[in-house]
């Protein structure tokens, strides 16, 4: 990403003989390489990257919500599959998105690596020789003094060294001269910024390859261990071996949701006890913004909800108590939740299966027969349920959601609704076959997530370096000052010409004036007769004085 194309060796206008195929290919590759690493290409790739990210925010993404994508596909059966074929539901892991950023990073490497080498070299070489015509520089001045040439340059050198310039004295073609430069940190920042972006990408990639996360709903009093088969859903990088997960186990002891007066959620906290590698369990409290960090893993509370508890009494005397299933909140404001309890085994002698599907309202009110919740706290829990009996299809071989019934079994008449009712705690309903279903209580569950991303520390370090490099490159100004002494035209004394060139600042005038004034004062102090007067001071052609970001 060079700011201005360096002069390139012109191709021979008429080669004596046609170049060999190998050289032609090499020449073409070189041309492509130069095109790819040109700033214009980098700009276009930047734009492409920005444009390519747009569909990722407008269309549902699998990485955010699989069910949203499934819903979209169901809603748009014609265009949906085509979008899917173009990876538009997986934009950020799609080959074309990767192609753009990889090209961009190759372009960046092709630009920043030569620039870094060049900069490294310049750190160990003295400032360049002074240009022949100092008065053509953006800022220039001529001072006359009675001091001899070398003594006058000594004064300039001193002033520049006080200002922390790197100074070199040379015997130039048009007289003794001083070259000085400072602000190397500007280019250092530039190189650091771009190299850190590469490091950031590597950290990101590493995290994706070796990272994983698993989510699970845990009811109070229960727990889980860090193993993929235990999680409700999990996602893992291609290089994660399921055997290598840290041996972390977590028990949820208590979950508490606190609300403000206007029912805004104030905090969710979970008291957990965890153990690593079979060591003694440790109790701690985690909450929103406050995960547990242990051994490279993090445990988060990502949500909560309620599980209604039912008991079922069969007409033959068998009873089943403490049957519960998590109902997922449909409305976080009132915690009205939705779910299903599937009971595939109703004991010996029964081939029938049973399911209770419906809504749970922590503080339920009935409005025109419909159950709604008016408070997220479980002040007066009610359920509005449909009870089904028949065949649930759990052993049909097709995976089904634990939060919904298999509609196909209902459509095929294998699963039939036998009751619809609203129950408060303790109330029950009797099915046609004499079975009594009782809503006996409520349990609270927490949605916990375990995340492991070995790359994130690298990404953090790289992004801090990005910021530091950015600040260096935008705030430091690079200044070059040149001075040359020559005999005054009228024969008496010396004329000292000074010129400066600055990148990264607009206010060069005042700084240069202050430099020349200080030099002049020092010259006057050094000379016995303070005869020096500013002879001329000019503005040269204004350069592009602002920052070249790359």
């Amino acid at each position, binding site marked *: *990403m060079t*700011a*201005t*194309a360096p002069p390139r060796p012109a191709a021979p206008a008429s080669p004596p003989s046609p170049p060999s195929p190998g050289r032609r290919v090499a020449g073409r590759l070189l041309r492509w390489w130069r095109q790819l690493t040109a*700033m*214009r290409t*980098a*700009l276009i790739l*930047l*734009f492409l*990257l*920005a444009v390519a*990210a*747009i569909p*990722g*925010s*407008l269309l549902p*993404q699998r*990485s*955010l919500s699989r069910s949203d994508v499934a819903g979209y596909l169901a809603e748009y059966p014609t265009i949906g599959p085509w979008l899917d074929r173009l990876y538009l539901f997986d934009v*950020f892991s799609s080959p074309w998105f990767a192609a753009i950023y990889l090209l961009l990073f190759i372009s960046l490497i092709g630009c920043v690596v030569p620039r870094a080498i060049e900069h490294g070299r310049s750190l160990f070489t003295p400032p360049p020789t002074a240009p022949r015509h100092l008065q053509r520089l953006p800022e220039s001045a001529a001072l006359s003094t009675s001091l001899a040439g070398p003594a006058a340059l000594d004064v300039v050198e001193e002033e520049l060294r006080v200002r922390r310039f790197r100074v070199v004295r040379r015997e130039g073609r048009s007289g003794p001269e001083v070259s000085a430069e400072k602000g190397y940190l500007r280019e250092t920042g530039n190189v650091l910024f771009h190299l850190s972006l590469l490091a950031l990408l590597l950290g*990101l990639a590493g995290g994706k390859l070796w990272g994983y*996360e698993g989510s699970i709903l845990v009811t109070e009093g229960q727990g889980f261990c860090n193993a993929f088969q235990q999680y409700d859903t999990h996602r893992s990088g291609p290089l994660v071996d399921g055997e290598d997960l840290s041996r972390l186990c977590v028990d949820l002891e208590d979950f508490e949701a606190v609300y*403000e*007066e*206007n029912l*805004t*959620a*104030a*905090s*969710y906290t979970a008291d957990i006890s965890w153990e690593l590698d079979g060591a003694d369990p440790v109790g701690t409290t985690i*909450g*929103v*913004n*406050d*995960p547990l960090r242990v051994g490279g893993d*993090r445990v*988060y509370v*990502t949500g909560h909800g309620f599980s209604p508890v039912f008991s079922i009494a069969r007409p033959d005397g068998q009873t089943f108590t403490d049957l519960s299933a998590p109902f997922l909140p449909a409305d976080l404001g009132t915690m009205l939740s939705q779910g299903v309890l599937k009971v595939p085994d109703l004991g010996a002698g029964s081939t029938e299966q049973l399911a209770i599907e419906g809504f749970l309202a922590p503080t339920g009110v009935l409005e025109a027969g419909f159950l709604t919740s008016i408070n997220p706290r479980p002040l007066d829990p009610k359920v509005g349920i449909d009870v089904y009996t028949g065949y649930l299809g759990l052993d049909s071989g097709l995976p089904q959601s634990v939060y919904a019934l298999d509609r196909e079994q209902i459509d095929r008449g294998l699963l039939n609704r036998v009751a619809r009712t609203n129950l408060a705690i303790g109330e029950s309903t009797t099915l046609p076959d004499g079975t009594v279903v009782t809503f006996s209580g409520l349990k609270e569950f927490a949605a916990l*997530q375990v*995340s492991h*991303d070995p790359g*994130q520390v690298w*990404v*953090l370090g790289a*992004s*801090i370096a*990005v*910021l530091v490099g*950015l*600040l260096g490159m*935008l705030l430091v100004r690079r200044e070059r000052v040149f001075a040359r002494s020559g005999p005054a035209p009228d024969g008496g004394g010396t004329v000292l010409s000074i010129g400066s060139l600055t990148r990264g600042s*607009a206010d060069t005038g005042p700084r240069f004036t202050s430099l020349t004034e200080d030099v002049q004062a020092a010259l006057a102090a050094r000379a016995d007769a303070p005869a020096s007067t500013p002879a001329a001071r000019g*503005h040269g052609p204004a350069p*592009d004085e*602002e*920052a*070249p*970001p*790359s």
Partner: protein
Amino acid sequence: MIDESLAALSDTLFSISVGLYSLAVVAFCAELAFGRSVRGRTEQLVAAGGVPAQPPVDAPAAGEPVEPARARRLGLVAMVLTGLGAVTHAGVLVARGMATDRLPWGNMYEFATAVVLVAVVAYLVLAVRAPSLRHIGVFLLAPVVLSMVLIGLFLYAEAGPLVAALRSSWLAIHVSTATIGFGIFFVSGIASVLYLVRTRRDATVAAGASTGASAAPSLLDRLPTAAALDRTAHRTAVFGFPIWTFAVIAGAIWAESAWGRFWGWDPKETWAFIAWIVYAAYLHARTTAGWRGRPSAWINIVGLVVMIFNLLFVNLVSTGLHSYGGV
């Protein structure tokens, strides 16, 4: 616990700010109108050179029309009104913060109000440091008034407590820097729009001069020079870019502790990324041959459009993790 009287005071101050800004717009307009009476030096320069004259930027008196005293007085009035507006505008947020006992940028209404305040303050700083930039006042304050009215009408949210996810010290870091970055980009974007207007005007004047016809005088001649506008846009973007970068990084750190991952392509994150890319492109374009001037100004404007889109569309239309305070 919400202090209702302070919350009501905050709402009153909001209306007063809108009123003061509107008066400032009127004063700026009057200043422009009366400032036209004595002009000519600019045109002479242009006509003589046959090219758009760009007098030295830091010496506004050299190329700009002499200001009549009345115009200068009106300009001063406009600046004072703007300053008063900024004070009451800050009062809106302070009163909100005291009423709710928290940082006053916990929902879209408060965030957008704070962004506009940053933009106004950035303008005041610019105008005080470089008086020639004062003349962009009407072009900056008119969008400010419009934004404030729209914020009041469509984004208003009652003073209330923060949702649990926002109760973190990162609110002070991430949201504050995002606000500052956005406000500065706002000024930068306006400067780029005015740069485009001004360069077109200059081209018209130059074309008129080369054919011998004199272009009709226009209020646009009172704008700062194209070079000054371009440089203002660039400097503000240079100032805002590291702040925005920091805001995104701080957001990622917060997301890591709040949502379980530092980056997840949530719609807000995606658009913050897009904005970052666009501003990075702007800073690069400005030093790339063939992209300087108008093309890079357009990129800066795209950046501002992306920022506004990120605020409005992502919160109001799409669903993501950044949905707070009812929207």
